[in-house]
């Protein structure tokens, strides 16, 4: 009897322990099912840092007093789409920076009056970058906007010609004077010739040198204000939230269902590689997937083409640029210009190019500074091998990823595609702009 009671008690205790074990296991299982987030807290913070909602509001640009003036943006939009801003009347900024292609052109190298030296980079989100161009040879949106206008391969015009256009087109003149004050009379051709610039061919150069210092200064100021208006427009071009951003929000909300809806397993694994062993976030970090810095990643030149010096030449160019941050054309009297004053130069920047944002990857092929690569698969294969650089030193090391992993990365990168957040009215030629341009932009390939 007592043996039976003892057995009974022991079995009751065993079943109680068993029950508790089952309850604990079930609780663990369900809590796991409620939050199957495959991410550690550190990883979640990395995801948050890449999230578009982590992008701070665009800082004011004290170097450009009209940077955030909607009237300047409107004028800038007109100038951006206007083919009259070129030597032959056929090239606008939008010829290469086409809104429907995320402000790129689908070509290996930019094609305007001639062929540009490099691939056309997107403008979207570049207002956040301290440096413009692949080699960072300009340090503000407005000073960047001026260079192609006088580049013989691009717009191939002269500043005198552009300034005269502003002064003679009634719409431009009114808009300009409302923003910057009155334009003096430029009709005297002996004082203000048809073409004149310090950077052009010998004819326009001679004409420029024949002008008085005051007149040259007057033309420079109006020319710079053209750049500042275009910059005000470009500041509006911003990427929109993508499926990746919706996934990150689901992770931050601990919303399992939404996470599964947003990402399949390959995309998830691709993202894990992206922030992990593929080392992508070393350069493609922050909400725009760029650190705005310069890196030599051993991108090989086309056969017969001299390797591009990259940032080493870019630093020299920006330091000597008459429209840089330290120039008198900067509207900010304080002229902090920390980026320019403390810009690095040295052998490690030979062949280094600016990290592009990955938010514009979809539909902006070909890629790299000379348009060397047509697909993301090619890019990933390149980084997996990390070949020796032709000049300078390739910072990256072989990743040794499997084909499956490369495919997962490629799949993940597609999740960054999204329409711009910028309202549509800014993404098309303004109504009053020459209709010929619409045809050109539409058919340019």
């Amino acid at each position, binding site marked *: 009897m007592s043996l039976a009671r003892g057995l009974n008690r022991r079995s009751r205790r065993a079943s109680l322990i068993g029950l508790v074990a089952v309850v604990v296991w079930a609780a663990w299982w369900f809590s796991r099912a409620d939050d199957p987030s495959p991410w550690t807290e550190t990883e979640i913070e990395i995801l948050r840092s890449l999230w578009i909602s982590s992008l701070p509001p665009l800082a004011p640009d004290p170097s450009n007093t009209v940077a955030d003036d909607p009237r300047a943006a409107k004028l800038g939009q007109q100038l951006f789409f206007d083919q009259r801003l070129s030597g032959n009347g056929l090239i606008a900024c939008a010829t290469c920076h086409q809104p429907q292609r995320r402000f790129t052109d689908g070509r290996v190298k930019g094609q305007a009056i001639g062929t540009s030296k490099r691939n056309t980079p997107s403008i979207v989100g570049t207002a956040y970058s301290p440096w413009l161009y692949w080699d960072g040879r300009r340090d503000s949106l407005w000073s960047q906007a001026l260079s192609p206008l006088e580049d013989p391969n691009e717009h191939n015009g002269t500043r005198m010609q552009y300034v005269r256009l502003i002064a003679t087109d009634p719409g431009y003149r009114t808009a300009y004077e409302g923003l910057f004050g009155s334009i003096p009379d430029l009709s005297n051709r002996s004082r203000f010739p048809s073409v004149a610039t310090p950077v052009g061919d010998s004819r326009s150069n001679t004409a420029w040198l024949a002008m008085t210092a005051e007149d040259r200064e007057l033309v420079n100021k109006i020319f710079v204000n053209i750049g500042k208006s275009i910059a005000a427009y470009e500041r509006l071009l911003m990427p929109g939230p993508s499926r990746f951003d919706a996934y990150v929000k689901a992770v931050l909300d601990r919303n399992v269902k939404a996470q599964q809806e947003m990402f399949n397993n390959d995309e998830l694994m691709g993202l894990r590689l992206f922030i992990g062993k593929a080392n992508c976030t070393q350069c493609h970090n922050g909400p725009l997937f760029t650190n*705005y810095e310069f890196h030599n990643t051993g991108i090989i030149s086309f056969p017969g083409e001299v390797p591009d010096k990259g940032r080493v030449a870019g630093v020299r160019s920006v330091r000597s640029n008459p429209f840089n941050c330290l120039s008198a054309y900067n509207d900010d009297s304080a002229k902090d210009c920390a980026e320019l004053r403390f*810009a*690095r130069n040295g052998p490690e920047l030979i062949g280094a190019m600016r990290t592009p944002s990955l938010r514009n990857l979809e539909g902006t092929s070909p890629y790299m500074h000379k348009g060397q690569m047509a697909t993301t698969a090619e890019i990933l294969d390149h980084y997996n091998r990390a070949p020796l650089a032709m000049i300078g030193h390739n910072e990256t090391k072989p990743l040794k990823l499997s084909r499956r992993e490369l495919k997962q990365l490629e799949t993940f990168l597609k999740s960054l595609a999204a329409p711009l957040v910028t309202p549509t009215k800014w993404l098309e030629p303004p109504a009053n702009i020459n209709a010929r341009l619409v045809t050109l932009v539409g058919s340019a390939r």
Partner: protein
Amino acid sequence: MARDIRITSICLPSRPFFWCKTAFVLVLVLLAASMAKEIQAESADSRVWISQAGLFHVTYKSKLQPIVINRIHNWVLRVGSADGQPVTNADITVEGGMPAHDHGLPTLPRMTQSLGNGEYLLEGMRFHMNGYWEISITINAGGDRDTIIIPLEL
């Protein structure tokens, strides 16, 4: 019954209850200690760094708090001698980089101003990657020269 379950699930009655409770408390103490360590790590920039030959004591304060990547900012360095006196006429050079990636800082930061009382303004600091950085500060003062390596995890 409820008490039974609680005891069974945390501390099995077969083990001495006292030791179990002690272990539980110990775990809590360890947890608290690790959290305190993290808080201390965050305020690492108030720490005094001693130069390699022991000639100078340096503290730095970043004007950007917390230090994040991709933002140019300034630091204030306070330089003292080994006996704690402010060093007021130092010539300071700064370099840095990521040993794991074989590259330097993306900028060329410089000491631009002596703020007095052994404090110096260091302008142009910027980091462009998360990970382990080393900042090397070389101080020249009164014929003495010494270097300090400050580790920084971003």
